[in-house]
């Protein structure tokens, strides 16, 4: 019995050696590995994403195992597949633009973490698309995205501490300050985006009044289909200039 097993292991070993010898450097990750990993996520743009990865694999220094890990992580995260697809499209666009995605990988994992926390990252990813369209360096895009993700979290936490909650889907929402997820998320997105733009444009985090005015202006100009006027009133009533300063500082620290 034992010698049989030894034979089996030995022959597998031999086969493996032979295959390595003949196939050479195929110990590397292949397109098929990516295809398999992507198939774990329902994707409308599967083919396009795979094609971009194929492009990447042909370039030296392509971080194949890092990207594969990211795809596997995304597959495991409990989040909408549309959001996961957006993250993958970010890498797709970068690859299509012949950018090196090395510097984007950390942000990919940050986005996966953010998705796991239930943060609404669509707008942040759109910002990254903008950066790519502008031809900004990857490092600059990465830094900008990093800051925006921090702001999303900080704004969400601020609303929580001011008693504005995100009702769990299907929950009773009996408390008047528990907003349906879509409405809550839009508030977070719009406030965080306004603060991000302000800071990136050179605004000082210490000018709370200016920040507050900017956020209020943005929220009021948005059509009711994006944010309800009563939600805007609720938020502007509960948060003040000092709060926004704290939020902005958190992103700058």
């Amino acid at each position, binding site marked *: 019995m034992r010698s049989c097993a030894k034979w089996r292991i030995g022959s597998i070993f031999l086969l493996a050696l032979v295959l390595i010898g003949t196939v050479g450097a195929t110990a590397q990750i292949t397109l098929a590995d990516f295809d398999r990993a992507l198939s774990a996520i329902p994707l409308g743009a599967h083919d396009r994403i795979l094609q971009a990865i194929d492009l990447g694999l042909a370039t030296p*220094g392509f971080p194949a195992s890092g990207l594969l890990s990211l795809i596997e992580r995304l597959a495991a995260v409990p989040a909408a597949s549309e959001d996961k697809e957006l993250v993958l499209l970010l890498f797709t666009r970068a690859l299509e633009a012949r950018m090196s995605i090395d510097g984007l990988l950390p942000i990919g994992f940050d986005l996966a973490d953010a998705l796991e926390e239930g943060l609404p990252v669509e707008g942040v990813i759109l910002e990254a698309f903008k950066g790519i369209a502008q031809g*900004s*360096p990857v*490092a*600059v895009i*990465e*830094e900008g995205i990093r800051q925006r993700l921090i702001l999303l979290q900080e704004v969400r936490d601020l609303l929580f501490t001011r008693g504005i909650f995100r009702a769990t889907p299907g929950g009773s929402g009996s408390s008047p300050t528990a907003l349906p997820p879509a409405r809550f998320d839009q508030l977070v997105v719009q406030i965080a985006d306004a603060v991000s733009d302000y800071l*990136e444009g*050179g605004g*000082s*985090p*210490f000018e709370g009044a200016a920040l507050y005015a900017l956020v209020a202006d943005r929220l009021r100009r948005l059509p009711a289909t994006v944010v309800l006027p009563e939600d805007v009133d609720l938020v502007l009533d509960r948060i003040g200039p000092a709060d926004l300063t704290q939020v902005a*500082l958190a*992103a*700058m*620290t």
Partner: protein
Amino acid sequence: MRGDRCQLETAAPQSCILGTEEAKRSVYHKQDEVSLLRASLAGETEAWGEIVSRYKDAVFGLCLGFLRNRADAEDLTHDAFIRAYDNLRRYHLDKRFSTWIFTIAANLCRNRLRYRKNHPVVEQPPHISGGKDPASIVAGQDRQKKVQEALNELPYAYRAPLILRFYNDLSYREIGEILAIPEGTVKTRIHRGKAMLKGLMEKDVMQDED
């Protein structure tokens, strides 16, 4: 064989005998940076040692400025040089080496700060010896202490460009490359950072006078 560095390190005027390590390394003292880097790439870790000795103050100053903590700055200075050596094959010799090593150090610092939930660990500012005259010593020390405390309070995004500009003496462009922000943003942050520093120092003054 007496090396230049040996003379600086020992106050004693008598000749000093270098150990084998030092003798080996003194071969690299006169070499230009590009040769040192090529040697390092070939695995001559002694050549890398010379690179370290040339850049350690600059990298440490960057880390200390960013992190405001001496022990952390020391750790990350060490880490930066190890990481840079490991990644040497990714460095393109046509780019400035200083920019590259500073970027590695800056990224390490940024990641370290991220994982500290609250504000960076603030320690007592290191004792700095001032000028000769007692009155000016006190005044100088006082002012420097205020600067240090204000620096500790400054948000990282404003502090980092200030350090790179006023300690490392880098151009706006280089600072932008290292911190991954556009050049225009660098200028704005430095301008604003100086104003904030001033404000924080004056605030402290007012509090002192209460």
